[in-house]
């Protein structure tokens, strides 16, 4: 008796990058996240062409116009207008530019500084290690948003200072990851080989160690995008981040509480934009973790 033909999964071939891609592709959520991010990046780059109006242009005869599908709405303002007659859709499109910029700057800054600190701490150990990691512990002892708020309060509110504050707040995560990765890599044979070959500390750390510590850092960087966007938006909401009239999503919600009764669209759309962007980066981060972490492979 012959049963149905059984599909035997082929062993996955190709280099590490190809293997990574096949693993990543299997995760539908992660692919969806990546696609959304591509769309958002596209929106941000071509904001000038895509937005129907300039983000800060005020249409004095069209205050709090509802979205086009509601009575009184028009396709001139697809998602309605705010209390001083600015087009919601255009502001949200331009907001994508700011949020991505904030995410990218925070991740780059914190990755550079945090990884350097972690590498140095893990490589030299001893006093240097203790000093760096205690400093990170101090940062961790304060709730992230509170620390960011305090930093911004000292530096004066503004988008740039908000970015700096958020970058400082997330440093410990990168430093800890990099340090842990270095310490787990140090006893391995390829490390001893590089040392015997006389690699200088700098060359050794950057060229030999860093690539082998990369996976957890890549995952953290992806998740770091969402944290950065959320925190910067929260600071904007509290009036400590980007200042009006900047079309930043959090700042747009700063005085939204007063429109809860009469203009739901002013309250709803900027938040949806934040949620979708953050969700996309979280999906991507989860997918990267599954594809890069061999322990979780089925």
């Amino acid at each position: 008796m012959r049963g149905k033909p059984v599909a035997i999964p082929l062993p996955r071939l190709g280099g590490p990058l190809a293997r990574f891609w096949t693993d990543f592709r299997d995760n539908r959520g992660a692919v969806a996240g990546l696609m959304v991010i591509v769309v958002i990046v596209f929106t941000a780059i071509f904001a000038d062409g895509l937005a129907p109006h300039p983000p800060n242009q005020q249409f004095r005869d069209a205050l709090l116009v509802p979205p086009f599908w509601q009575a009184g709405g028009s396709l001139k303002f697809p998602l309605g207008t705010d209390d001083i007659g600015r087009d919601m859709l255009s502001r949200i499109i331009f907001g994508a530019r700011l949020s991505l910029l904030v995410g990218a700057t925070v991740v780059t800054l914190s990755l550079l500084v945090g990884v350097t600190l972690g590498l140095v701490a893990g490589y030299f150990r001893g006093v240097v290690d203790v000093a760096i990691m205690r400093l990170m512990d101090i940062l961790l002892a304060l709730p992230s948003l509170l620390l960011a708020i305090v930093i911004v309060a000292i530096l004066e509110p503004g988008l740039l200072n908000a970015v700096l504050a958020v970058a400082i707040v997330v440093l410990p995560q990168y430093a800890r990851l990099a340090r842990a990765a270095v310490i787990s890599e140090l006893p391995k044979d390829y490390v001893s080989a590089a040392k015997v070959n006389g690699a200088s500390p700098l060359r050794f750390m950057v060229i030999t160690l860093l690539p082998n510590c990369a996976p957890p850092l890549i995952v953290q960087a992806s998740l770091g995008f969402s944290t950065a966007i959320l925190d910067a938006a929260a600071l904007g909401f509290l009036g400590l981040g980007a200042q009006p009239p900047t079309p930043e999503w959090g700042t747009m919600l700063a005085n939204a509480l007063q429109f809860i009764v009469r203009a739901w669209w002013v309250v709803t759309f900027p938040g949806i934009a934040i949620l979708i962007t953050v969700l996309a980066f979280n999906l991507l981060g989860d997918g990267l973790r599954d594809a890069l972490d061999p322990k979780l492979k089925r």
Partner: protein
Amino acid sequence: MLSFFLKRLAVVVPTFLGVTLITFSLIRLAPGDPVELLAGERGIDPARHAQMRAELGLDQPLAVQYGRYVWQLVHGDLGHSIVSKETVLSEFLTLFPETIELAVCAVTFAVVFGLPAGVIAATRRGTAVDHTIIGVSLTGYSMPLFWWALLLIMLCSVTLGLTPVSGRISVIYYFEPVTGFMLIDSWISGQVGAFASAVRHLALPTVVLGTIPLAAVARMTRSAMLEALGQDYVRAARARGVPKFQLMTVHALRNALIPVVTVIGLQIGVLLSGAILTETIFSWPGIGKWLIDSIARRDYPAVQGGVLLVAAVVITVNLLIDLLYGWVNPRIRHAR
């Protein structure tokens, strides 16, 4: 156990000293002269200015000032709020129960819904139920809290009229505070309406603050359960014919709880960050709103003391969790 405790303490003390260094620098780095801040809008003449600088010790070298600052801290003196003239410590202690109450309710909410959700997702791995729970919890995890609060106010308070928009309790009720926890105090007072009002005011802030912990608990429970279910002891129990419910709860869940408890412990910082936003939006009279108000009013002594006390709370909770682990799990105690 004692040596483990001392080792942990040896890490905690320098961390705390570091935090005092940050809060000490805070008032010196902040824009504006502290004396002028104290004097307020009225301004101050130069002679009085110099005198006040001397009184406040601002003419001393920084090291001396810092030493004096720590000395005062050790004696429980965190300074006075510029606005209310009360001591920072007493203001903090009055408001802190409100934040604890909110945080405890949020964590309870997170565990009551997150734990079963995670278990259900794990037992139905790969089904539509599992995918839905994963999707919803990742969405909750990505939620901008302040917007979530606005959305819930719009839906529950404005459209449905179920809950009040803000505040702690309806102004028509009055009773003497006993514990500082509104739920308990209103219950003790014997006024049914007061208790109901306190609960209604609590509902939305609890949901908002509990959303991210809820998502974290559900995600962690699911993956810990999946790991536990793959273990040999669960297979052995299944082979012995242990009923499914018992297998899930006694054999799998109990072992899966350790990482879940860790996640709950890690949420303390997230909770306090979230409390800042939640309390600000709902006008909840707790630490978070107080800190934001103090920053807006440039009440630096209050900010300085508040940040220090919040850090002290986080450090203490983390220390307690560490000790609890060491007590529960000897392997941690004896590592390194």
